[in-house]
């Protein structure tokens, strides 16, 4: 045991000595140009540092050799340089992070719908999560990446996945986007659901632009007050039930708009085909899928309570509806809405909307027993009161009264709908 201890003691002491030697060697040698007094100990200073002694009473204190002003300045300059370097590094990291932006919103709801008929059938009282969106956007001078998902009780679905190139030299006024994105048609379709006053889009937009999105390529251009968006899309939309287009038909969709600050609007066009087979067809046929639209938004400052806006949109088209648009193949339809919004102070607003949709132009209103026909026109009047709790939370109460055109003994269904919605966004 004793020899072992001796060996260990020798080993540790030699290691310590070696370390000390290395440290001495690593000490920097002063540059030749540096002033002598800055590097050489003063003549009065001891060769070896003496152990500190308690100061004697009344004894004059000997000032320790302090670094010269030059030395201190040099040291400070080095420190500042080091800090500047760190600062630059941090700024570089932060500038990269600043290009990445996360945003999103959740819409929680309570809804009550009247019984649809006098038998007590239909209607509901339920809580739900209408939208749970999370969006990531990374934007540089030349490119933009955007991905948006929707997490709701039925699952998580991809809403948008866009890759955009801003054409160099155009200050982002001209861009090309490929991926899954909103159709460039009209006003309410492309508008974010988080900005809308009413919980759902008007009936005509829901039918003509189901899910509002599709896969395709789009060019966006802006010149002064003019806006142009034109794209080529698969055409059936992301609610069509297919994850890829299985035909060679493509739809061309465009919106030409203007923005004069207090007045904005535009015209839209859509031309394409939907493959399908009507009962009279032996084989599938490419039926026209087309739309024309016009939209206008006016913003006023006439009521002393706050801003007022009036928005309207008209859409007419052929072949529409969800599920591969086959439900209304080759059927002409049209509809429009008018929306009036009045702000009251900074945090409140009231709105009223009238929308109408005729699902089959030229077809007389029908009755199916005591109920109106499925393709009868529907007019809806809706009222909203909304309140902003700060910048992140909006609460709205909406009451909508749909009136289905009825004939003979058929009655307008009792389908008035109350929606209380709380929207949190960041």
């Amino acid at each position: 045991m004793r020899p072992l201890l001796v060996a260990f003691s020798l080993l540790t002491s030699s290691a310590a000595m070696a370390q000390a030697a290395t440290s001495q060697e690593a000490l920097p040698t002063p540059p030749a140009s540096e002033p002598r007094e800055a590097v050489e100990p003063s003549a009065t200073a001891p060769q070896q540092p003496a152990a500190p002694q308690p100061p004697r009473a009344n004894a004059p204190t000997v000032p320790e050799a302090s670094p010269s002003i030059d030395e201190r300045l040099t040291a400070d300059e080095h420190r500042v340089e080091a800090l500047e370097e760190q600062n630059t590094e941090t700024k570089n990291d932060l500038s990269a992070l600043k290009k990445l932006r996360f945003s999103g919103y959740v819409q929680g709801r309570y809804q009550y719908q009247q019984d649809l008929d006098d038998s007590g059938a239909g209607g509901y009282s339920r809580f739900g999560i209408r939208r749970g969106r999370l969006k990531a956007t990374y934007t540089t001078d030349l490119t933009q990446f955007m991905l948006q998902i929707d997490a709701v009780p039925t699952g998580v679905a991809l809403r948008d996945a866009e890759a955009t190139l801003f054409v160099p030299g155009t200050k982002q006024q001209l861009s090309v986007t490929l991926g899954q994105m909103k159709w460039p048609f009209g006003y309410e379709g492309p508008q974010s659901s988080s900005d809308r006053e009413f919980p759902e889009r008007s009936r005509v937009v829901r039918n003509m632009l189901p899910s509002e999105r599709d896969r395709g390529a789009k060019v966006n251009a802006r010149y002064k007050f003019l806006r142009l968006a034109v794209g080529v899309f698969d055409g059936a939309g992301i609610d069509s039930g297919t994850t890829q287009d299985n035909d060679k038909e493509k739809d061309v969709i465009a919106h030409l708009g203007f923005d004069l600050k207090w007045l904005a609007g535009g015209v839209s066009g859509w031309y394409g085909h939907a493959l399908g087979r009507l009962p009279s067809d032996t084989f599938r046929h490419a039926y026209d899928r087309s739309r024309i639209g016009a939209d206008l938004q006016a913003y006023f400052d006439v009521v002393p309570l706050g801003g007022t806006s009036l928005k309207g949109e008209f859409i007419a088209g052929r072949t529409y509806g969800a599920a591969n648009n086959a439900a209304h193949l080759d059927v002409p339809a049209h509809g429009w809405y008018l929306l009036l919004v009045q702000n009251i102070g900074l945090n409140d607003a009231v709105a009223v909307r009238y929308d109408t949709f005729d699902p089959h132009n030229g077809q007389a209103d029908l009755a199916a027993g005591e109920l109106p026909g499925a393709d009868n026109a529907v007019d809806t009047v809706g009222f909203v009161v909304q309140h902003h709790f700060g910048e992140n939370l909006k609460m709205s109460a909406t009451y909508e009264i749909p009136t289905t055109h009825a004939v003979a003994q058929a009655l307008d269904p009792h389908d008035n709908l109350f929606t209380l919605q709380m929207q949190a966004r960041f």
Partner: protein
Amino acid sequence: MKKTLLSSFVAFGLAVLPLSAQAGTVTVKGSDTMVILAQRWAEAFMKKNPATKIQVTGGGSGTGLAALQNGTTDIAMSSREIKEAEEEKLRTRYNTPPTAVSVAKDGVTFYVNASNKLDALTVEQLKDIYLGDTTSWKAVGGADAPIVLYSRENSSGTYVFVKDTVLGGDDFAAAAQTLPGTAAVVNAVSKEKNGIGYGGAAYAKGIKELKVKKGNEAFAPTAENVKSGKYPLSRDLFFYLRNKPSGEAKAFIDFALSAEGQAIVTQVGYFPVK
């Protein structure tokens, strides 16, 4: 049931009707370039109108415009024009187009060392210098010496102005040294004989303010040239509001635009709009 639903709806509506805004206080937030100016205006205005309180804070143009969107300020100060996206957000949220009021003008000035024999450059030459395409003073008629570039931090409105107006949106040369304020830029240029920097109009020893050439004429960043728009690098300093100014906010803006208010603009070092 319809009656019950309608009653609930009306009750909710009444419950959320707005509380009256805090009377007597106008908040002004935004551009750091404009903070001192707005503070001077506020001091002078509050002396005349003791019942009104004007709260002025900085944070940058973007911060002010964001506060306007969020409803946390009455007036946003901005040394740049509002962006389309910001304007769209304001319209969507408040259903009215925002109002812009130009309250002062500023001339972005390029400085060189006092020993530099150059007096004027074109915007194109300045662009080439700051993009790093021109690296020697000789190329623009000066001495045979390398150009030392000084710039501002990217959070500065002046940086954004130069980037957009002079560089056409392109990035500054990597060699440009970033400094935290106009005073730092002026100081650096006064010490570096081959230096060039930019900022607001500055009257300091050791530097020379460059004129900017437009055609055959060269314009100095004087009050007259900035006000008339002849100086190519002049910009407006704005107050932005959610809607048309009214009440105390309007009174404050009217004061800023009055002869007394515009005299303060000159005292602070900017140029009057009237």
